[in-house]
Structure formats: C-alpha cells, structure tokens
C-alpha cells in the first residue's frame, strides 16, 4: 500500500520514450569520449606509478623516470614490509577502526540529517550551525586538549578514542553531504507515509533510509578514505604497536636520517588495494537512485 503510493509520488510526471539522438551530436560525442577517457587515464596513472615505485630501490626511484621499469622487480620490498613491523596487525586494526567509524558516522549522520531537514522543531537552525562550524575546526588545534580529555576518561591507547574522534570530526562533512539530498526528497513521500499511519521510525527506516542509499554510500566512501589514511590521531592517541593502524606502517620506513622508499611504496600499495576494492564494490550502489530505492524499500 505504502509502496504503490510512493511510486506514484515519485513518478508523478508521465514517462515517455526518448527521441533518437541527432546525427550532428555523434561527432561531438566522439570528441567528448576521447577527452573523458584521457582524463580517466590520467587519474589511473598514479596506481601504475605506485606499483612501479613499490618495486624499485632507492637509487632507481630517484634516478629513473617515474614510469620506467626497474632493472628487475624488487619484490623483496614486499617481503621486507611483511617481516619488519606488524603489518597484519595494523591491517586488522585499520579495517576494524575504519568499518566501525564509517558505520557509526553514516548512521548518526542519517538520523541527524533526517531530523534537521524533515522534522519541525525550534532549534533546527542553531543545531545545524553547530555541525557546520564543527567542520571548520582544524584537527591540529584541538589535538592537545583532546589528548587530555581521552587521558582523563582512560581512552588513551584504546581504539575507541580513534572511533569516537573519527566519527565526531567526520559528522559535519557527512551531514553536509547528506543535507542537499534530504532537502531534495519530495515532501509527498512523507505525507503519503504518515497518512498511511506510519510512525516516524517506520518512515525513517523503511522509506527514507532506502531512498538515500546513494548518498549514504557516497558518504561512506568519503569517510572510509579519510579514516583509512588518517595518522595524526593514531600517532597521538595510540601508543602500543598492537593497536596501531596501517598508516603507521609507512612511518616504519621513515628513518632518522634516511628513508626506505621502496618499502614505503610497498606499504602504500598494500594499504591502497583494500580501500580500492571496497570503493569499487561500494560505488556500484550509488547508481541506484531515488526510484530504485523507493521500490525496494
């Protein structure tokens, strides 16, 4: 019952077949493709570069052109990374901290954005302002008080300090990304749902959340990237090796007077691949727009 009403609301304008594309636009389209594909190649080159980088030694990295092949592939960079430092532990920690923070952030942000955009209350504007200003705070200026705070509640060297920090510091940007989408949701949907006797919770969980899949995934991807690569908080709040994350793995090869660039490259490659895979899997979900979401819900 609800569903049929929803579909009607969302497709209140009649759907008609498109007209065939004109001939003249075909050439333009060809040029367009060339430009877009060229741009895509430029965006992909860093991955190729990073792979090559991770298979060279210091001399080759600085002496050879970035895309030149090394004398031989130095896979020992990878074995070096595995044997020096606890990259497997870091990896598990990274996955856990990132996953939990992303889940928590997206969930809390969805709740908040829903209340901020769809519900009526007096403090809406100031609360929204609170979140927006939160985005403006540079982390380095909050670092020392935050450390003292976590020390006082005994969360130093505890992954919770990371999860809470990531969630709190990413809530603003997540809410801001979601805002535009929530504003754009048709009011008719709520009206229809409420008329059908939906409670707010039902409305939120069964209708709104599914409809905002694409923006939730967008926000999740962005959160994932931020959290995965973050290192200031990790270095400051976490002290034992067993609780550090992958970004620390890179620092493992930064020496007092010198660096092992090949190993840094290998670590970067190891830490990039999972996030790349996760990204490609998740980004498939973005395409499912409003209509698909409402039908499924």
């Amino acid at each position, binding site marked *: 019952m609800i569903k049929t009403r929803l579909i009607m609301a969302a497709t209140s304008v009649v759907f008609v077949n498109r007209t065939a594309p004109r001939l003249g636009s075909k050439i333009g389209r060809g040029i367009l493709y060339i430009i877009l594909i060229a741009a895509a190649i430029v965006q992909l080159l860093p991955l190729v570069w990073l792979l090559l980088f991770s298979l060279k*030694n210091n001399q080759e990295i600085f002496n050879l052109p970035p895309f030149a092949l090394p004398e031989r592939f130095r896979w020992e960079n990878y074995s070096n990374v595995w044997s020096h430092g606890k990259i497997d532990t870091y990896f598990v920690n990274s996955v*856990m901290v990132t996953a939990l923070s992303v889940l928590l952030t997206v969930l809390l942000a969805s709740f908040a954005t829903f209340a901020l955009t769809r519900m009526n209350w007096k403090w809406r504007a100031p609360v929204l302002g609170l979140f927006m200003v939160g985005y403006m705070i540079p982390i380095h200026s909050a670092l*020392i008080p935050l450390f003292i705070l976590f020390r006082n509640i*005994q969360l130093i*060297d505890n992954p*919770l300090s990371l999860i809470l920090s990531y969630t709190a510091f990413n809530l603003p940007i997540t809410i801001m990304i979601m805002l535009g989408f929530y504003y754009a949701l048709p009011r008719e949907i709520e009206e229809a749902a409420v008329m059908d006797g939906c409670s707010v919770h039902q409305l939120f969980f069964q209708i709104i959340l599914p409809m905002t899949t694409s923006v939730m995934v967008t926000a999740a991807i962005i959160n994932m990237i931020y959290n995965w690569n973050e290192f200031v908080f990790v270095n400051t709040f976490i002290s034992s090796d067993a609780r550090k994350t992958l970004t620390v793995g890179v620092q493992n090869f*930064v*020496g*007092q007077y010198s660096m092992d660039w090949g190993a840094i490259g290998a670590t970067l490659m190891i830490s990039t691949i999972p996030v790349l895979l996760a990204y490609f899997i998740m980004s498939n979900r973005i395409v499912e727009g409003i209509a698909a979401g409402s039908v499924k819900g």
Partner: protein
Amino acid sequence: MKRKTLAFMLLFAALTWVLAACGGSGKDSGGGNGSGPENSGASSEASSRETSPGGEVTLNLMHLWPEGSNFAQYKIVSSIVEQFQQENENIKISVEVLDNEQYKDKLKVLSASNSLPDIGFTWAAGFMEPYVKGNEFAPLNDLLEGELKGQFVAGTTEGYTFDGTTYALPVELNIVPVFYNKAIFAEYGLEVPKTYEDLKEIIQTLNNNGVNPVALGGKDAWTASFWYMYFADRLGGDNLMDEAVANEDFTAPELREAAVYAQELVDMNAFLKGFVGLSNEEAKAEFMNENAAMYMMGAWEVPNYTTNPDVPQEFKDKIGFFKFPVMEDGRGNVNNWVGGPGVGLFVSENSKHKEEAKKFVSYFVQKWGEISVSEAGVIPATKVDTNAVSLPQMYIDLLNELNNANKVTLYLDVQMKPVASEEHHNLIQALFSKDITPDEFISRQDAVLKEGK
C-alpha cells in the same frame, strides 16, 4: 537476507574486537593506586604510576628508530632492553617507536599534558630548553659524576647542561664533512680544496663540464644551514656563533659576510638546479647516483659509503671526505667542525620510578657505546676504543678527525630556542633562494633571537 547476516557477523566481530581491546587495557592496569588515569601497560602515557602486586615496575621508553628504516638501531635498543630486563627481573620496559617527525610532535603533546614517558630521547640545547625550564627532565649529574664518569667524549654533554646541571646524556656524536666523489674529481683533474678559492675553482670547472658541483636540498633548510655555518666559522673563528646565540646578538660583521658568501655560491650555480625546492632525500639521491660531485652531510651518512649492503661497492670505493677549506683572512681553524651530539636520553622528572629509569639510562649508555659503531655505524658520544673493534677506514678517519678537532660548533638550529630556530630555517631558505639580502637576513635573525623564545 544473506547480506544482512554477513553484516551482523561483521558488526559482532568488530564489537568483540573493541571489547577485547578495552578488556586488555583494563587488565594491565590492575593494582594501580587509582590516583591517575592510567590504562594499558604498553602505554607510555600512563607515566608508569602502576606497580603490580609483585613489586614489578614498568618503565615506558620512547625512541625514534623504527624497525623498518633504522633496523640496526632498533635491534640494538631491543637487545639492550632485553638484557636489562633479564638482569633486573622486577623491571619491565615497554617501548614505543615513532619516526623522527612524529616523535617530536608526540613529545610535545605528551609534555603539554604532563604525560612524558619515563625515559625518552631529546635533542640538545634550544630544543630541550623549554622542557628543562618546565621541570620536565630529571637531573642526571649523579650518573655523570658516578658510574659514567670519564666515559663521554669531552664537551659532548655540554649541550645538555643548563646552569651546571645535566638533563640528558647523548648517545650520538656527529661532525659534518664534505663527502666527494673521487672518480669525478679525478676525471677533471681536481684535488681536495685547501682554500675557499680552490673550492670555487672546483665548482667552476665542474660547471664548465656540465657536472653538478654540490648536492644540496634546500627545502630541508638545516642542510643549507651547514654551509652558512662553515662560512661563519671559517671567517669568524671558534666562538662566533656560540656567542651570537648565547648573547642573543646576531650582528657580528662575520655573520653578515658569511651570508654574502653563501649567496656567492648560489650565484655560481654551485648547487643543484631548483635546490631550494628539493628535499635532502632528493639531493642525496643525486650524489648517490653520481650526478653531483660533493655533498655536505653529517657523519651519519657514512654507512652508505661503507657498510650498507644495498649500495654497490663500486660506488662506495669512490667516496671520500674533506674538511671545509679555510678562507683568506678568516680566523677559523680548518679543524673546526660543524656538528655535535644528536639525540640524548632523558628521564622524566614526573616518573614514579626515577631510580630504575636512571639505572636503565646508565646501562643503555654503556651498552650502546660498546656496540653502536660496529653494529649500527653510529658514532656514540662515549669514547670508542678503535683498537677493540674492527671498523671501515672511513670511520677510523672520522674518529681521528674528531680527536683532532679544535672546536665543534653545535648546529645553529639546535643551539637556538624553538621560535628562533624555526625562523632560522625560513631565513636560511630565503637567503639561499636570494629572496632576502644578507642585511635583511642578519636583521631578522637578530630580531627573533632577541625575542628570547
């Protein structure tokens, strides 16, 4: 449906992991006196207020030699910690490792929140001054006058001494020679310069032949500061820079003249193209790849020219070093060096186990002195018996130079207090990129020194 199950399982696993982590930290802190916010035993922040029922003491140690990049030092520290724990069964040492930059940042956060580790490393003079003034470091005079008496190379502990009290003990000692590629020099019939005029001729010859004379990475301004310091020393003699910093007066004419000479070298294209935007790592690569003939750097580079297995022997054989040449009418001795002790060990004043921590520091300094040269290629600040260990020739030569040194002037950026030091880096960069004149360089450096921060 399947997807939901998977999601729940993931969530469950994640929650278990968090709880395990929290539980672990709770267990470790058992037996504490409850006066402070301590947690994990592995945590350096806990400032070791915990004493477990068995009377066991946990000391936190923070160092800056990561396993991946400074494996030799890392290994030495681990083995010293291991041995110490075996010999002192009631003392447990938990170690935290950070890389250089992160280490400095974290040290500042920890000190600002009164949570320094029991034992850690500090840099000398200007860097540690705030910590000393803030009563964060414990005096170590009793060690210096007791069991470590006579162990240190003369003058190396001065940088860690304030009003007669020594607050840290150095473990590294370096001087800054000019390394050069003997093969390139031979190819163009060049010889080690005795005077600055010789050096200029060498630079001219190399430039005429399309060879980069000097590898220098000006983005890391401390490397360019070496060049400036040598000019200042060779012109003004032994105490010019020490006095300038101590008296907060940077107006001596030789200091200005040194800036003029530095810019003269820039005008001669002595340094790499675009060197102000290059890091030390990038500059070093030019030298290691034989694209540049000279490289002025601390003796810590010596392993790359002697023992580092990743560097081809062929290249190592080509590298030698020389002393910065003297200048006409200058007062500086050719046996004056830029250099000094690197990091030193401190004990936190707020440590609950100062005696144990000092015991460890003393143990560490002695053990480190015995094995650091032969195993990590680090010249310790304690005296090395060159007959007792077999060392590559370059080390022996450098150690001899150290013994014959007339004066070692501590790096300017280490001598200066933090604000002045940070500005020194900027001013050096501006000087070498010719953004400012020698006069501006002097007046701005003088002004910031006089701020006294």
